[in-house]
């Protein structure tokens, strides 16, 4: 019945790992061909893979794991999906209903443990309710602000038979979040657009979650008004990086021009972002002179961190459609003269060229590695995943995203070990595309067991590891904020990644000379199978620009000038 539900929901792929309490469902999986099951090597990997699948397709990702440890291993992935609003449906096995509460073998209070890390969860106690609950789970995961849901299914409920309720016959859920924005607020926003002298669009993952149409509408609005646009880490690709209104990512490691524009603007239009602390910096000095509008489908996001002047609760796609309609009907007005001035100011900031770097000598600088990766892969049908840390920020800075659903990264939770399994999920959804996971060696090792999955299912995922033998971001903070006391931020016993790849039956490449880099990247792309590219980079590179915590947007550190000495001396001390 579970498999029938999934088919009814249009599910094609399930990521999972079997165990005692979920065997009846696995027996069903065995006896059918409609749904492909991907055997991961760890349940956390299953959830991240499902996240990668969901983010790259816009469809919900599905996970099937067993009770107890199977469920608890999924918790990190669930929390990750909750913070990044990714639609995931996790089905867990549970001990039989009559054994719940007896500390049975592999029993855990799954619904209790996952209550705060899911959008909603259910324990199915009667087979009669099984199909309707699973359909409701898909509805909740994908409606409103998307998120992870979990359905806990005891083993006796799996064995018993009952009537199947097809999705069409499930009674309408009371959970029906508002999609259309309030027209009076939309009119107010349009008026603000017409008179703004220094406007900026600040967009986030909500645009991508709202669907491709929302990205199209955003592009139309941005190009129509001629306003500059910046985006959070999660929103990259909604507006193309090559677009001339694009001023780069904002936030702690965002671009100088983007953060300065946020600080100095007089109208900030937040579309599907949530004023995260990595974005706002010091709150009492956040964009002090601006009128702020906020479009979000989740009412609890509004006024949570920053007080806004024009709140609009609704789906980004629907609201943008109405904004465009109203703006056009009123004559497509903007203050062109002031806007010209504003672009001149932004032009001055751009001249700072905050991402410039110089590749000197043979030691590969990570920025150079990513710039070369961008140059050699940008014309491919390309999907990028990342782990978490410095490499993630450099990837966001140096790679350009032209379309939504092309960029998979753990933003809210910052989960090291996310990228590799996510790349497996993406490759499942897009078997013929180039899927690259930009990784740091430490993050990558957190879920390295998934090499087994990649090899077994012949998923040609490319693992581009920027190996600095350090926990780079931790090291950077220790250097800048903790008196260069590098407490446990470096690894002494790293594996030989080439041999590691070979041990799993995959291909490994190692590169440590700048002049060999291009060749190595090309070799990685050309190989038809999973590849680990171990790219040894400068060990003490720091990630700039950077807004130090507790500082506003206009107090950015731009790199060399502010910390050159610190980097030089620390390098000598620590190798």
């Amino acid at each position: 019945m579970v498999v029938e539900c999934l088919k009814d929901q249009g599910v094609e792929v399930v990521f999972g790992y079997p165990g005692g309490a979920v065997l009846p469902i696995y027996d069903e999986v065995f006896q059918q061909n409609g749904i492909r099951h991907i055997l991961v090597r760890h349940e956390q990997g299953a959830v991240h893979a499902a996240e990668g699948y969901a983010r790259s397709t816009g469809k919900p990702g599905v996970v099937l794991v067993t009770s107890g440890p199977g469920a608890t291993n999924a918790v990190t992935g669930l929390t990750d999906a909750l913070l990044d609003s990714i639609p995931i449906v996790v089905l867990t096995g549970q001990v039989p209903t009559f054994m719940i509460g007896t500390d049975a073998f592999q029993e855990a209070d799954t619904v209790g443990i996952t209550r705060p890390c899911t959008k909603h969860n259910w324990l199915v106690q009667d087979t009669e309710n099984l199909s309707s609950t699973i359909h409701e789970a898909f509805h909740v995961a994908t409606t409103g602000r998307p998120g992870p849901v979990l359905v806990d299914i005891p083993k006796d409920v799996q064995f018993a038979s009952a009537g199947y309720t097809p999705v069409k016959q499930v009674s309408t859920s009371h959970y029906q979040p508002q999609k259309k924005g309030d027209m009076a607020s939309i009119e107010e926003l349009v008026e603000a657009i017409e008179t703004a002298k220094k406007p900026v669009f600040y967009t986030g993952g909500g645009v991508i979650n709202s669907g491709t149409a929302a990205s199209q509408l955003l592009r139309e609005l941005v190009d129509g008004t001629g306003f500059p646009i910046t985006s959070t880490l999660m929103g990259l690709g909604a507006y193309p990086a090559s677009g001339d209104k694009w001023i780069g990512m904002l936030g702690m490691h965002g671009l100088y021009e983007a953060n300065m524009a946020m600080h100095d603007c007089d109208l900030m239009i937040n579309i599907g972002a949530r004023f995260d602390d990595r974005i706002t910096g010091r709150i009492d000095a956040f964009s002090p002179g601006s009128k702020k509008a906020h479009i979000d489908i989740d009412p609890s996001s509004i006024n949570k961190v920053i007080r806004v002047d024009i709140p609009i609760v609704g789906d980004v796609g629907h609201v943008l459609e109405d904004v465009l309609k109203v703006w056009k009907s009123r004559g497509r007005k903007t203050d062109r003269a002031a806007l010209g001035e504003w672009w001149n100011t932004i032009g001055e900031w751009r001249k700072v060229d905050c991402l410039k770097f110089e590749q000197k000598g043979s030691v590969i600088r990570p920025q150079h590695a990513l710039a070369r990766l961008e140059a050699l892969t940008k014309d491919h049908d390309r999907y990028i995943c990342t782990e978490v840390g410095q490499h993630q920020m450099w990837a966001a800075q140096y790679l350009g995203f032209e379309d939504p659903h092309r960029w998979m990264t753990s933003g809210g939770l910052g989960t090291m070990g996310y990228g590799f399994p996510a790349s497996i999920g993406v490759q499942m959804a897009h078997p013929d595309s180039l899927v690259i996971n930009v990784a740091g060696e430490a993050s990558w090792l957190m879920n390295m067991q998934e090499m087994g999955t990649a090899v077994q299912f012949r998923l040609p995922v490319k693992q581009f590891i920027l190996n600095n033998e350090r926990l780079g971001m931790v090291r950077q903070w220790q250097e800048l904020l903790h008196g260069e006391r590098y407490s446990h931020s470096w690894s002494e016993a790293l594996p030989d990644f080439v041999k590691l790849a070979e041990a799993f039956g995959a291909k490994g490449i190692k590169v440590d000379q700048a002049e060999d880099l291009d060749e190595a990247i090309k070799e990685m792309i050309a190989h038809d199978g999973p590849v680990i590219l171990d790219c040894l980079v400068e060990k003490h590179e720091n990630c700039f620009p950077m807004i130090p915590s507790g500082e506003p947007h206009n107090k950015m550190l731009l790199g060399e000038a502010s910390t050159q000495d610190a980097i030089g001396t620390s390098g000598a001390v620590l190798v």
Partner: protein
Amino acid sequence: MSALHIKKGSTKHSAYNLRPQFSDVQETHTLALVVDNEAGVLARVIGLFSGRGYNIDSLTVAEIDHAGHRSRITIVTTGTPQVIEQIKAQLGRIVPVHSVNDLTVEGRSVERELALLKVEGTGDKRVEAMRLADIFRANVVDSTLESFVFEITGTPEKIDAFAELMSPLGLSEIARTGVAALSRGSVG
């Protein structure tokens, strides 16, 4: 040597903004929720308060519609206006929550609480307790030669006042239900 020249006590030592962000004017609000009466719904509501660091001053919950599987939860909470708004929005996000009403701001409402108080004593104290109970219109629901159990209904303030008076007269135990509240007038 730190590149940022951080002074001791500065928030820059943290990746987070440690400064308090909002005004600290505390308000007390009474919220009424209608929820699906399903397993775990109370845990979801309470977990939200503990997980996000909100206060619960009092909480009452009981089924109000058996056929429709609905329960009503009344929560009295304290926080800054911004926190109260967040609490309401977060409660509204919980899937089995059907409605969230802030009775403190949505027009006038009546609030009542019931309490049982055990008062032990003899002689003058016992007579005085009885006399005060009469003034507060508390009923005696159990009596021995050395003790009374009073039942009193009223606003939380009235019960506070009664309990305070009973304290020197031998108050030994108290049980309170927490606040139940409804808006005044017709629903429309």
